[in-house]
């Protein structure tokens, strides 16, 4: 019955890179006021490239799985690449997300964009 692809259930139950960094270079936080879902993204950057990442947050399976998956997608990329990163990449990595829940799935992307804005 699930519209939740395996990948979502997997990341929700076994979140990757969950927690906090001791000394992050970039931090972005986003909250959905309508439902209280929250995602915080912390990045360690060396020579313009993400060398470490963590997320923290609470909320529905989709937002938390998306955050976990996003940490995997950003690791190793340059900030320039991340600035170009499209919503679609995360959505298709999630195996697609139904329209009613796009907002949840994209909450981590907004946290990422906020984090990127904090860098020059």
């Amino acid at each position, binding site marked *: 019955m699930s519209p*939740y692809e395996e990948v979502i*259930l997997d990341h929700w139950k076994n979140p990757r890179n969950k927690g906090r960094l001791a000394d992050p270079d970039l931090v972005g936080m986003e909250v959905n006021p309508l439902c209280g879902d929250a995602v915080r993204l912390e990045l360690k950057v060396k020579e313009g490239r993400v060398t470490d990442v963590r997320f923290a947050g609470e909320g529905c399976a*989709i937002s938390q799985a998306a955050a976990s998956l996003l940490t995997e997608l950003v690791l190793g990329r340059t900030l320039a690449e991340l600035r170009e990163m499209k919503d679609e990449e995360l959505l298709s990595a999630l195996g697609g997300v139904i329209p009613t829940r796009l907002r*949840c799935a994209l909450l981590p992307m907004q946290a990422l964009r906020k984090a990127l804005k904090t860098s020059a």
Partner: protein
Amino acid sequence: MIDVAKIRADFPILGRLENGKPLIYLDSAATSQKPRQVIEAEARFYAERNANVRRGLYLLAHEATELYEAARKKIAAFLNAYPEEIVFTRGTTEALNLAAWALGETRVSAGDKILVTEMEHHANLLPWQEMARRKNAELLAIPINKEGELDLSAFHKALDRRTRVVALAHASNVLGTINPVQEIAEGAHKVGAVVVLDAAQSVPHMPIDVKELGADILAFSGHKMLGPTGIGVLWAKGDLLGDWPPFLTGGEMIREVWLDRATWADPPARFEAGTPPIAQAVGLAAAVEYLETIGMAAVQAHGQELTALALEGLLARPFVEIYGPRDPQKRGPLVAFNLRGLHPHDVATLLDQEGICIRAGHHCAQPLHRKLGIPASCRASFYLYNTSDEVEALLAALGRVWESMR
């Protein structure tokens, strides 16, 4: 007993599919569905009687005005009230804003007290916050107990001569709790306070007689009781309205206007500035007529039956937590709950895959959810077109949701 199959045939939307499955609509507390009698009444108004009201001297405008005022009379009779006590608004929210503003202007001074409760919908909380701030009055929320009922001893303790207004939900949109209005009104009236009822979740679901109820002011929405969106009602007892200054100003609410000043028409016109929701009033009258034909006692009994079934099924499932009184007699026809460890949004999405529409979120009651210690909840709500099979389908589906997410 009501004939649900016959009723369902009147609601065109119930023939629709949701995600490929027959629609099971369990979100009537957010907005109800509409029978064709209501849809057609509005359409017929536009096709045969449409004109602006109160102003025109030609037959068509006269007919439109008569229909609009007949709607007012119909709603007055439904509540056992007088037509002059009925003001049409956009909905409960506007009605409560109007009441809070006007009571602030006429009855509240610095240092006075306004009582609300911890279970209020934002619509019956924020207008009082604003009014209290404007008037330097004190806003106090009566707490709820573990069963999700009002702590009446706390209410009686909070009540004093400074208390000018007691504003509360007749039935909570989350806990379901029906509050003891008579007892509250008796206490409030002893100290000279006015009782304002947010009746958005009661008027659609039970017989209401304002002469017995004890409240002074009542607000509700058409769209939650089979009527159109865009219309609601403010009822205020006797000549309470007569003391109030207008909330919105403009055409049709005046007596005489000069460039620098104006005088006001009598109520209810004084509170209906501009072109009112005319076709919507006609639609609401058709909704009331529909409900009267079924009978509000029967509507209420059906709701309690479904709620009892739902409560029983939810309580039997150890992975479910429910909020509010366990006794269906103490409730309106809705149940809020959570599946342990699952976010309500996921539950709603997974149910929707089976065609079942419930609501998930804070239901415009953030302070209540904070009190319950949860960020959000699921809510299933029932109306006269829902069947016990639908409740069973919900219960069965919840088991599958729980399994699929373990």
